[in-house]
């Protein structure tokens, strides 16, 4: 299933772990260096900026090749010819990706193979749509089918961006299916979304815990985060009300609320709290971030339907509340408490980007975070997961 050698992924994980341990002082530097010597870097993974450059030029190159064939008349003859050309191109690009991966030192998160892979999937799905002449509106079968292709590619190439796309297309297919089923679907859809997302989140947790599935660690993380968010969206009052209005034309007026409104309100405000609490208790950053994001959305939901404060007063008060929260948090966790600390976690930052990229992104912080060490001299940090799965930068 996986296009890469599993042992290579293990070497990558071992190298990352060694570096982390050396940083945390669990293992002394010479030992770590000696061990790193024994495990050579398994993949061709360039620096982030080179990756960006390779992605840009790889994309232009593939697009220009496609354009050349099109201009030379292959694609212009008929509808079918264009579709076939797209499929052939998808095959060619897939072969290119496989060749880049079957090397002695496979390309992994190197930009080039990603550009070709995304191009191949685009051509494949577009070609199928053209050949099946489904150009009126994206109906759920083709979206579902595209989602399956994306999911298969995500598993084969351990690509979390594709996994996120597959997740999104599955939900689009679900909405599309339900919007055609009439009024009753409006009552089933939230339950369906919540239960599906909960199952997915649970399954991804299992995937993270299972040693045999460790090679897709980042895929499970991204999917789990998305599943937590969609689970919340499935029961959020704002989403239910507006979507019900949009998809099922439920007439909701000021004095006529949506059915089961109190339950949805409880869900809207209860789940962020539950996520945050779970994140803090289980020391799970995924849950913590999902809790913070959904809490912001819960505030927005309340504000949207209830006029208690003017926007500016609300903003100012929220600002004061946030600053106070940060102040209390920084004070409270200055020394370690309940296994929590406010001291810098190096891994949380460095796991995602290397030092130069980080310096580029921290527009506001003028000093390097690494210079701020915690009072105990212990640098903590769980699995660093920052971006909501933008492009598998990990």
């Amino acid at each position, binding site marked *: 299933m996986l296009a890469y050698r599993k042992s290579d992924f293990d070497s990558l994980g071992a190298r990352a772990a060694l570096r982390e341990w050396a940083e945390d002082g669990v293992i002394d530097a010479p030992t770590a260096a000696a061990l790193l010597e024994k495990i050579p870097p398994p993949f061709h993974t360039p620096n982030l900026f080179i990756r960006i450059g390779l992605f840009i*030029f790889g994309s232009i190159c593939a697009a220009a090749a496609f354009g050349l064939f099109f201009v030379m008349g292959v694609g212009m003859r008929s509808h079918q010819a264009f579709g076939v050309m797209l499929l052939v191109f998808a095959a060619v690009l897939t072969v290119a990706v496989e060749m880049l991966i079957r090397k002695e030192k496979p390309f992994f998160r190197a930009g080039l193979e990603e550009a070709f892979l995304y191009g191949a999937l685009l051509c494949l799905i577009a070609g199928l749509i053209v050949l099946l002449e489904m150009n009126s509106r994206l109906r759920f079968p083709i979206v579902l089918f595209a989602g399956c292709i994306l999911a298969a590619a995500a598993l084969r190439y351990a690509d979390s961006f594709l996994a996120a796309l597959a997740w999104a297309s599955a939900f689009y297919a679900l909405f599309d299916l339900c919007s055609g089923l009439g009024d009753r679907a409006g009552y089933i859809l939230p339950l369906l979304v919540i239960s599906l997302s909960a199952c997915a989140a649970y399954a991804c947790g299992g995937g993270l815990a299972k040693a045999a599935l460790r090679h897709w660690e980042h895929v499970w993380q991204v999917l789990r985060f998305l599943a937590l968010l969609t689970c919340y969206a499935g029961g959020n009052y704002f989403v239910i009300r507006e979507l019900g209005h949009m998809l099922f034309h439920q007439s909701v007026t000021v004095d006529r609320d949506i059915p089961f409104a109190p339950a949805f309100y409880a869900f809207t405000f209860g789940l962020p709290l539950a996520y945050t609490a779970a994140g803090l208790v289980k020391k799970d950053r995924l849950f913590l971030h999902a809790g913070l994001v959904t809490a912001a959305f819960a505030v927005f939901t309340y504000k949207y339907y209830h006029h208690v404060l003017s926007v500016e*007063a609300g903003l100012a008060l929220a*600002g004061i509340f946030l600053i106070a*929260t940060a102040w209390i948090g920084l004070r409270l966790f200055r020394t370690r408490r309940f*296994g929590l600390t406010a001291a810098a976690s190096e891994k949380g930052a460095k796991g995602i980007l290397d030092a130069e990229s980080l310096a580029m992104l921290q527009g506001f912080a003028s000093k390097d975070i690494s210079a701020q060490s915690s009072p105990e001299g*212990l640098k903590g940090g769980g699995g660093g997961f920052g971006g909501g799965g933008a492009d598998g930068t990990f």
Partner: protein
Amino acid sequence: MKAAFPPGILPEGQQERIDHHYRSRPFSLFWEMRAILYLGVLFLCSGLGILIYKNIDTIGHQTILGAIVAATAACFWYCARHAKPFTYAQAAADSSWAEYMLLLGVLLFGVFTGYLQVKYSVFGDDHALALGLPATLYLFLAYRFDHRGVLQLAISGFCAAIGIVTTPLAAIQENVFDHHAPVWTGLAMGAALAVAGALSELRDFKRHFSFSYINFAMHLSMIAGITGLVIGKGWEKWFFFLLVGALGAGLWKYARWKRSHYFLLFAVLYVYVAFSYGFLRLLFLADASAGVSFAFFYFILSCAGTIYFFLNMKTFLKAESEDAGLPEK
């Protein structure tokens, strides 16, 4: 992260230490707290801003100005109290509060001067002075309190001030884009910033600031050069074409010296844009009908060449490198 180590590789007793470490290490809330703090500052500033704006009739200008001055002074006083003694090198990090207070103070000072200028036209029609004066203060503060974010604000302020001075009014009012004044201004600004960066590097005066200078210099001069290439006529096109090439070569050297992939990427990107523009223009001048196919050929070949360059860069750069990338200097 559970790494699968083959048995026997880890030294004796190491596994226990690692297990203990995972069990006992604290869970860091550093980034979350910082994000909450930043959002709080942002919300508070915008909320207060709108409040002031809406109630300006009842509060009165003097009161508002007084409040802003008081808040600015409080921020700067906090910074001054917590400031480390000045050093030519990078100052050691202190609490993140002082950093945020400096940023807040600087932003409030910007609001203050803006307010003065808009309401009372203190600087008259001289908008450049209204921009340049705070920028000068920012520059001083950036060096005194060792803050790169404030330095970037200062540089942007200077660029805006000089841009206003040198750009003819016609270019702004009539949206005339074939004016050359902004191009030359951009190039001059880029050169000045590059000199500042070089000086801070060579004289060892806040050496870590040189990145901000060179970064601004690169983007300014390259964008100005490419603009000049596009809007120029006759010999000017050749001049700007060669200029972008020369700048690219300079950046390439700089990137090699600093071992910076960031500058390398942008050097390649800018030079590629300029070269492609020149090549395609000549191509379409020569033969417009066959030009499209040749253009596709050009893109395929040139991109393949660039990819080859990126992939074999290590041999070009002659740098020992890890899989994670080159070490930062």
